[in-house]
């Protein structure tokens, strides 16, 4: 039996039997990813909107920076977060290294530039269209940004999904700051890395298949939600 067939069988078996370890790892993966992407949206959407709407010195530089940060190497982000959270680093006393929180922080840093850059690009287009109307209504800057964000919400969905994709499949940064501790900070991707280094390629690939299945499910679910929402709240 070749590795590929075996991988499919393994993944199938793990999913069917709801393997306890698998469930634990999947749940942590989902929780870390969703929290990181929520945080990245909380930070990135206002920031992206501000960069689209406000003109201030250094604005263009920031745009270029965020566009570039979309390609931040995860390992570098992991190292920086490691050094900051390290026991004798600046945030050492918080005791966050090797916890899910550390992984959330690292992934938030990786995802935020994606949210900022994409949302800015989407909102710039709408801002052009709404500009004179909103200004003639004497809307404050907060009002303007709020209106643009809300009215772009369906286009921003894809942005959020891009962020989810990056966070969910990321391994370099979470490995360093989470430590891949069994039952505590082990997630799908680090488990895959571990099984690869153990030479259990079938299991690693099986987990990879499950990761893919989950990713597809999340995207399908999000797409379904978006379509229903759009229908019920014409935009």
């Amino acid at each position, binding site marked *: 039996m070749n590795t590929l067939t075996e991988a499919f069988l393994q993944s199938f078996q793990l999913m069917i039997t709801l393997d306890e370890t698998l469930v634990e790892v999947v749940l942590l993966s989902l929780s870390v990813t969703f929290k990181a992407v929520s945080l990245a949206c909380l930070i990135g959407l206002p920031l992206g909107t501000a960069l689209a709407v406000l003109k201030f010195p250094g604005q263009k530089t920031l745009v270029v920076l965020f566009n570039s940060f979309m390609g931040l190497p995860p390992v570098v982000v992991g190292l920086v977060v490691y050094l900051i959270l390290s026991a004798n680093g600046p945030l050492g006393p918080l005791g966050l290294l090797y916890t899910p929180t550390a992984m959330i922080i690292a992934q938030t840093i990786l995802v935020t530039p994606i949210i900022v850059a994409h949302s800015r690009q989407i909102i710039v287009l709408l801002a052009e269209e709404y500009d004179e109307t909103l200004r003639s209504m004497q809307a404050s800057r907060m009002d303007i940004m709020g209106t643009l964000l809300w009215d772009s919400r369906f286009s921003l969905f894809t942005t959020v999904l891009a962020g989810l994709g990056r966070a969910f499949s990321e391994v370099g940064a979470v490995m360093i700051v989470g430590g891949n501790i069994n039952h505590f900070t082990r997630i799908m991707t680090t488990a895959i890395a571990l099984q690869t280094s153990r030479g259990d390629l079938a299991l690693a690939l099986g987990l990879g298949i499950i990761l893919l299945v989950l990713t597809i499910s999340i995207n399908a679910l999000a797409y379904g939600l978006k379509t229903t929402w759009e229908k019920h709240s*014409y935009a």
Partner: protein
Amino acid sequence: MPKAKILDLNDFSEQRKQQASIICSSLFFQRGKKKILSNISITIPKTGISVIMGPNGAGKSVLLRTIIGLLKPDSGHVILNPEFAGKTALVFQRPVLIRRTVYGNLHHALGIAGVPRRQRKSRIEELIAIGGLAGLENHPARSLSGGEQQRLQMVRTLSSNPKLILLDEPSASLDPQSTHAIEEIIKSTSDKNVKLVLVTHDIGQAKRLADDVTFIHKGKILEQNSSPDYFNSPSTPEVKSYLEGDLLV
């Protein structure tokens, strides 16, 4: 909105101050080589409906945008009577409704105008009635017909209770029925003591609504007169031929 520069009116005579809603003094606006506004100086009366006429490309829209502060003149000043400060609104030639329902558009505008959430529903009902939009509340604003969209824009403008409304050809490209509906809204608004400045090149509409008329051609003011005088005894050959339906080029 960038504030229109509100200068002290002391520079002007007492009478002019009291009678004016807007004073434009020597406005110049140029883009490239093209002089779009050249030396526009005009006093717009404080009450009634002031109509601005002129052929396409005369600079009417640019003038309205300059008055409300969306454009900055290269030189000159727009002086707004302090009574109107912060209470201005602009109805655009082409309405930009936001991507929400009719109800949503009004709710949004009331929010920006600072109307508390609790009071918005009843205000929206009033506005819907004024605009004759009953039954369309939950329709996507952008799926409305041209006339309905323009009416929605007009009542949306009213949601901030402005004291001065600039209207940029609100019924251009609308059929007679829709034009009539728009004019009814204009009249009822004017009856509530709201100052209106209406740009139109519909001569009939100007006759029906205007208290005074200003004629602009190629960025210059050619004539400003009370409505009867303007239509009965135009003082420039351009206005005369315009009123007679000749093509001004």
